């Protein structure tokens, strides 16, 4: 059994309490084995700082991001409206997501359909907790290690979040080394726009191989990501080059939770 303390929105409602924040886990974070570890790392941090948070549990459903990016506006809006009904019924005000795609969709696409929330990504929350002195990440096993951060498109270019994940890495006392294509010029992992769920079109190379190759030229100890899809793509890329013994692919939340 896990020692994580997790309460659902329904449990809070039943006890007449209101959580500080809703943790929107996302489909990858709920079902993908690798991404579930990221979810648990986020919860570990939330538990550690004693934040009152809730999850929707079985009431959560896909935000509709892959449908929207693939052009299925019908399906997207069906998902969005159902989710908005659930969120509004619980009078949710503030949401932290474990996935940049959920983050972008809840933050930017839901207001037009009647869902208005303050939405942050987990890297922003971790940074805020560090800045507020509630979370100490210094001096862990990543001290002095070389870490390169792969920008998630839906965090970076889509929403201009470049600093929060980097700030967390710097707080680890790690050696942050950016790839040539980073921040605004970041190179996609290849999974966005619903590519995660289909085979790539014919080409000379897979996008994640191109990107991993770039990351590996820096000879990092860790490739840090902030998105479960980037995690899958970069992990596959590292395996492709048989480097999984030398280079770890880890989420910012896992790096921050490592020392807890």
């Amino acid at each position, binding site marked *: 059994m896990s020692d994580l303390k997790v309460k659902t929105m329904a449990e809070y409602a039943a006890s007449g309490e209101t959580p500080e924040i809703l943790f929107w*886990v996302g489909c990858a974070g709920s079902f993908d084995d690798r991404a579930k570890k990221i979810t648990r790392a986020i919860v570990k941090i939330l538990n550690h700082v004693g934040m009152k948070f809730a999850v929707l549990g079985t009431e959560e459903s896909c935000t509709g991001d892959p449908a929207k990016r693939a*052009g299925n506006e019908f399906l997207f809006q069906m998902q969005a409206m159902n989710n908005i009904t659930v969120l509004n019924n619980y009078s949710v005000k503030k949401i932290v997501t474990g996935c940049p795609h959920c983050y972008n969709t809840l933050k930017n696409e839901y207001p037009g359909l009647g869902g208005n929330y303050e939405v942050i990504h987990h890297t922003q929350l971790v940074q805020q907790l560090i800045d507020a002195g509630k979370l100490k990440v210094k001096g862990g096993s990543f001290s002095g290690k070389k870490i390169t951060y792969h920008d998630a498109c839906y965090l970076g*270019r889509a929403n201009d979040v470049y600093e929060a994940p980097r700030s967390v890495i710097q707080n680890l006392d790690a050696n942050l080394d950016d790839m040539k294509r980073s921040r605004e010029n970041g190179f996609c992992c*290849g999974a966005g726009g619903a*590519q995660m*769920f289909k*085979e790539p*079109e014919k080409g000379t190379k897979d996008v994640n191989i191109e990107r991993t190759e770039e990351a590996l030229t820096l000879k990092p100890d860790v490739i840090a990501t902030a998105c479960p899809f980037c995690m899958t793509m970069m992990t596959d890329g590292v395996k492709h080059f048989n480097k999984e013994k030398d280079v770890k692919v880890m989420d910012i939340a896992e790096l921050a939770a490592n020392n807890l």
Partner: protein
Amino acid sequence: MGISNIIFILLLIAGSGLFIFNAKKIRRNILLGKEVERKDRKSERWKIMILVALGQKKMFSRPIPAILHLFVYVGFVLINIEVLEMFIDGIFGTHRFLSILNFEFFYFYNFLIGFFEMLAFLVTFGCAVFFIRRNIIHVKRLVMKELNGWPRMDANLILCSEIILMSALFLMNAADQTLQQMHSEHYFAAGSFPVSQFIVPLLSGLQEHSLMMIERFCWWFHIIGIFGFLNYIIISKHFHIVLAFPNVFYSNLNSKGQFSNLQSVTNEVQAMLGAHPNPPEGREFSPSSGELEGASPPNRFGAKDVFDLSWKQLLEAYTCTECGRCTSSCPANQTGKLLSPRKIMMSTRDRVEEVGRNIDKNKKFSDDGKSLFGNYISAEELWACTSCNACVQECPVNIDPLSIIIDIRRFLVMEQSAAPQALNMTFTNIENNGAPWQYSPADRLNWASEN
């Protein structure tokens, strides 16, 4: 008024008349697009236009072409003051009219002419390097296959025209200053010539008459060249020098991650969910039929042809100068996929131009059995996009090729049910399980009790 003044005035009327005629056609073509709200938030729009269009902010992510482009841009804008003088001289038969700006205490005109010569030199230098980058160094984004044929010719014609126009200016000034030194009758001393002075030795030994011929020839060549160039740019990719400004002004000011919301879909979905709190104007929700009434049937979902795009997307197609920064940053293109965001913009322009010619011919558009999707853009291109926004980020004039890709995807998915099979499975999973993979919604919280 001499015959040459009359010829000049006729040229001026014909040159600007043709320009206005073609500009009106482009405006008509752009307005074939659908309405989209881009006239709000005026102060933000002025600010972004000053920064990005006037200030060239986004060009500087690649400093070398940015500096060369700045030479050409500033030169082009400021040398127009000298062109204004040529217009005045042409109409009124004066010579170097602006030399009235030479005052005893400050020879302002001489300063201006000297400054323009320096600029003209930088323009020539910039264009020459651009020509070399395209034709000798073969910078990758400037030699890609979508540029084969007319686009490559177009680019080289622009660069050569600018070099030739500037050369005529230098030769004219060289002949003029030689005549000034000879104290020739109409050629009073005016101007300073830091660049063309180096051409003067080439003209030594020529008779006064020959020098006057050269000076007059270059003057006419330059002015006719400018009228010609003006009417060339409007049918060329070079029209970005004008459209960049409105295009940036009407930029999408929202987060790049926010895609447009289809109100027509919202109406349908709300009807399906049996809730319609805010029916759009002129429409009423009928509980008995479960449908919206009192309205024309919804437009096509997504975009099949240029008529389904917005006027802003069509303006972007006309603004694109085919620099290829978008394509050179596109992850799909860089890994050998068919998709090139630049080609999406070029195809859109080609199609809207074809539609325009059709309208010219038939008074109104007569169905030609073609469309943007299918005849110009293929499904393989569209499905290679990762929606990463690198192309949108890169564009120096805020063109958004991604919005066109998504609009055509919407047509493919919602009108034709033509998504790739794997995506159809994903849609089914989302619909049935609330997740893109086939997992039971009941297992959503399992992570909390696992290790």
